[in-house]
């Protein structure tokens, strides 16, 4: 039961010496058993909120984006804040499935599937905002370089155009990666299906997977290469998002530190959201042996690491502003801390993003789910505030004091944002009920008996240590 890592042995990734069939039963059971009462409670709440959000979307599309609080001088506010917020959350999934795969971090297997699903839902929520911000949504196809009868083409050197390609590529590659990983598990559900319709649907999407080693050979190569190409992709996406700001001339936006700062912030916020979803899901479906304290501990460490990157970037921005000697730049950062949006900085950036993750230096904090959950909630909120401060903080007081102004959100702004939270959580709850939320075929590899030399006399005997680490 002890999941603390000792210096010379690895703590087991699946506790209580569970075997293959236990893993299959427990993980498939989440899909096959009736939903627990808590699931229905959560889904009713999130579904209601999502309905509000959809209503707001319909209202603002039919009426126009004038229903938002955007006006001069703040032309980008909650919409783009929400876009960057959701895109950022989407980064944890691919980080876990790609970068941690290349780094041979086997603990990722318990969490990668749900993190990837979360990525997809987060990117869907993100896409809503620029889509609606276009104003006339039915003309969003102008973003695509298609021949048209006006003979007009896109400016491919615009960061906004790069963003279109980065986000759509990211979504597509994430879907492919996620689905490739799902195929063996869908085959498991197909083979366990008791009704004809389940058998047909899982069979259809499992593509007739047979677990053959001649297939696994190509499959593993495909997975490795997908991980390899997703790694620069995940780093590029938030870099490109940051270019939307960094290539402008506005103080606080025009910053070369933005790409790494945004990527670190995205991973930071994404991991917080993974934990926000997985800690309740783990309790709801009794997955404590698969998502162990060790997993939470490691994710908390990543939050600490990326949170410290982010804190460093915040401090460096102040230093650069001071060192630049540029009075607009200096004022913009002074305004960030002491201007009308002062408390956004003190609460959101300083307390939530810089200070709260520092609790994770202490093991008892990383091992206490309530502390972890508290920090994750702080980070979720803090990352939203951070994006708001960057976007609105830069716009509302620019070069000429006569053009200064404030941003006031309307009820449509508020409920569209809350609505996407509902859409996101509803989609996640549906995912948990209809697809295996943990990658069974990958978790099984982490068991000691998955080793081809397990129990043999000439191979190493890993039983005592709970499995060798290398794949």
């Amino acid at each position, binding site marked *: 039961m002890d999941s603390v890592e000792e210096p010379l042995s690895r703590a087991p990734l699946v506790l209580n010496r569970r075997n293959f069939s236990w893993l299959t039963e427990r993980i498939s059971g989440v899909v096959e058993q009736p939903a627990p009462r808590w699931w229905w409670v959560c889904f009713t709440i999130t579904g209601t909120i999502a309905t509000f959000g959809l209503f707001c979307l319909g209202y603002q599309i039919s009426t126009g984006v004038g229903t938002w609080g955007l006006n001069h001088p703040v032309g980008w506010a909650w919409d783009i804040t929400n876009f960057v917020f959701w895109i950022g959350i989407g980064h944890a999934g691919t980080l876990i499935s790609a970068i941690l795969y290349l780094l041979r971090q086997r603990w990722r297997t318990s969490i990668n599937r749900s993190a990837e699903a979360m990525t997809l839902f987060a990117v869907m929520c993100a896409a809503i905002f620029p889509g609606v911000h276009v104003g006339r949504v039915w003309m969003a196809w102008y973003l695509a370089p298609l021949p048209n009868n006006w003979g007009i083409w896109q400016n491919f050197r615009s960061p906004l155009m790069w963003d279109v*390609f980065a986000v759509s590529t990211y979504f597509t590659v994430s879907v492919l990666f996620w689905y490739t990983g799902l195929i063996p598990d869908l085959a498991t559900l197909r083979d366990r299906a008791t009704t004809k319709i389940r058998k047909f649907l899982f069979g259809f999407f499992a593509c007739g997977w047979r677990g053959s080693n001649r297939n696994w050979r190509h499959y593993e190569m*495909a997975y490795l290469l997908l991980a390899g190409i997703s790694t620069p992709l995940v780093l590029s996406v938030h870099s490109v998002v940051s270019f939307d700001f960094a290539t402008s001339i506005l103080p606080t936006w025009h910053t070369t530190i933005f790409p790494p700062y945004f990527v670190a912030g995205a991973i930071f916020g994404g991991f917080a959201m993974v934990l926000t979803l997985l800690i309740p899901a783990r309790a709801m479906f009794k997955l404590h042996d698969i998502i162990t304290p060790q997993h939470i501990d490691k994710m908390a460490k990543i939050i600490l690491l990326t949170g410290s990157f982010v804190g460093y970037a915040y401090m460096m921005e102040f230093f650069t502003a001071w060192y630049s000697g540029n009075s607009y730049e200096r004022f913009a950062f002074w305004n960030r801390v002491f201007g009308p949006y002062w408390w956004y900085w003190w609460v959101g950036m300083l307390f939530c993003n810089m200070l709260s993750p520092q609790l994770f230096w202490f093991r008892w904090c990383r091992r206490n789910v309530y502390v972890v959950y508290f920090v994750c909630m702080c980070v979720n909120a803090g990352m939203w505030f951070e994006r708001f401060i960057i976007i609105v903080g830069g716009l509302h007081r620019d070069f000429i004091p006569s053009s200064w102004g404030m941003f006031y959100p309307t009820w449509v702004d508020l409920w569209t944002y809350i609505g996407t939270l509902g859409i996101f959580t509803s989609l996640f709850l549906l995912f948990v009920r209809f697809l295996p939320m943990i990658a069974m075929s990958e978790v099984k590899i982490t068991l000691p008996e998955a080793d081809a030399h397990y129990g043999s006399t000439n191979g190493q005997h890993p039983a005592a240590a709970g499995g060798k680490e290398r794949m």
Partner: protein
Amino acid sequence: MRTPFGHNVYAMAAEYPSAAALYEAAKIVRDAGFKRWDVHSPFPIHGMDEAMGLKKSWLSGWVLFGGISGLLTAVLMEFGPSSILYPLDVHGKPTNFMTVPAFFPIMFEMTVLFSAFGAFFAVLIMNGLPRPHHPIFNWDRFSRATNDGFFLVIEARDPRFTEVEARELLEKSGGQHVTIIHDD
């Protein structure tokens, strides 16, 4: 080859109690010189490719092909409109050699996108998937191949295949529930 009841024989198959047992059995079948055979497991077993005598997967070639075609697509898609159909001069930056770096992000994204499609379609095509019906599903024990079962299957198409030899080999290598699988 047919059974006394007139069924076509697809293969001779056996179940093994563990991944390690399957690994050892694969080495025996490989050394016996069989070519058309396969092992089935709920997860990829590390080292099994060598145990089966399989080489590295060249799926990577398709990914490279995808990546190159993505890059070329992006080059055509960007420079066609920008330099011929609809030249733009934004912020005093015309389309020329000096402004090429600003076209790179989309080239990168398209390269990644097409590589990913290459990997995805190659894994399906090289594995002969989707294939919803397969003779091996006729064996009722085989449903455990996606749960906790380890199977070795020698196809009747293999030139060395004889019922007696295949059965003997599977039993000798520790196989249980040695069975003939029908084609229909």
